[in-house]
């Protein structure tokens, strides 16, 4: 890993500024990404939380889906919440959406319900066989409803898989960027 990795954050809509804050605190350089040329110099990409239907619309209008897929063949990509939906191969409850298909999972958009059902809870995060506790914030979160063969489950909360990884593509149903702990971000940077 470089001394100061360059983290790109897809910035059409959502809480991209929160992600930017956390990575800046960790000493990374950050680049907000709205156009495919901005993928050229970054070391990894984050697809933030927000509304997947909105992010999907911008990905289509900016024709950035193929460049992201190409990027993901070489460098780490992390999606949170709406970002997890965008990375999936299949999405339930969202017929108009075209996910990127970088992570062999099926997700149910708003699978945990409406805002009334949003919650904060401690979950488990397993790195290199070591279990750690992690505070997890779920906001109108997507639920992983099925997992393909090559996908590893690195985290669980309330018995559901909430951190999944396939190669260098990783997704969280919750929002590490909204809590004080940067354990997850550090793990993501270790994939570089």
């Amino acid at each position, binding site marked *: 890993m470089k001394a100061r990795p360059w983290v790109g954050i897809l*910035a059409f809509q959502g809480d991209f500024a929160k992600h930017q804050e956390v990575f800046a605190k960790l000493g990374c350089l950050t680049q907000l990404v709205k156009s495919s040329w901005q993928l050229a110099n970054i070391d990894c990409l984050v697809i933030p939380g*927000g*509304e997947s*239907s*909105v992010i999907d619309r911008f990905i289509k209008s900016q024709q950035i889906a193929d460049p992201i897929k190409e990027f993901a063949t070489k460098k780490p990509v992390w999606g949170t919440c709406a970002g997890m939906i965008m990375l999936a191969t299949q999405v339930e409850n969202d017929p108009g959406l075209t996910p990127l298909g970088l992570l062999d999972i099926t997700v149910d*958009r708003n699978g945990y319900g409406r*805002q009334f059902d949003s*919650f904060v809870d401690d979950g488990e995060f397993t790195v290199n066989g070591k279990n750690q506790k992690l505070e997890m*914030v779920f*906001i109108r979160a997507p639920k992983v409803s099925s997992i393909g063969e090559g996908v590893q489950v690195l985290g669980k909360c309330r018995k559901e898989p909430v951190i999944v990884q396939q190669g260098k593509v990783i997704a969280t149903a919750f929002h590490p960027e909204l809590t004080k702990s940067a354990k997850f971000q550090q793990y993501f940077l270790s994939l570089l």
Partner: protein
Amino acid sequence: MLADKDYQLKVGLAEMLKGGVIMDVTNAEQAKIAEDAGAVAVMALERVPADIRKAGGVARMAAIEKIEEIQRVVQIPVMAKCRIGHFAEAELLQELKVDFIDESEVLTPADEENHIIKHPFKIPFVCGCRNLGEAMRRINEGAAMIRTKGEAGSGNIVEAVRHLRMIYGEIAALKKLNSEKMKKLAKEMRVPMELLKKTAQLGDLPVPNFAAGGIATPADAVLCMKLRAQAVFVGSGIFKSSNPQVVAKAIVTAVGHYDDPAIVLQASRSLGEAMPGLEISKIPKDEQLQYR
């Protein structure tokens, strides 16, 4: 106050809406149009503000069936308005599981002295404001998002601009105050000193700040974003225009690319007729919604 878990979830949802467009809709069909155009959330209403203004009389929370009809057809968050101070309407909206409650001056106020104490609710609230004092009081009562009041239903952006400039001007001035003067200001604003301190430290409101009231074109929305609004509410501007689908898409594109005039220009072509606008000085003061 700012640390508890419920509050974290409320502000968290507001964070997720940043960079988006929240659209007023009055039925399922409009809600679907809004979602397809890229709305980040819809506001379920009986009438859009321009029609509330025309109809006169008492404007209340939307009918239950209206809200449910809209909840059924979209996946994006559904917001709804209650009257200022009407915590019983807010309780109904929470039972309905709307995703956000707007304690709104667009409806006829139910209490001229008190706003709702919003902390006990599980559902987040957004409140309008014209200046820093109003914003601080609403945040102190538990609002998880602030929006400008602007002048709803006017199609005139001037008041939203005034309110954005006022808030950020006051925050800039706040940063220069010594603690004695800040204490005095906190007393005048009737809010804890701690809240003012935090705001001064951040150089911004401690919760997301969106623009609302009078946005009618993509360029109006861009103006608000450049004046540091983090997202926009569009009320009458979409469904009172001659081509709602096109205008809705154009405003979504403009907000996402507010820093790129070439894309905003492209989005602003062939929009048809915008909603008719009202000169603010021609609206009698007692009919202006922002003073509620």
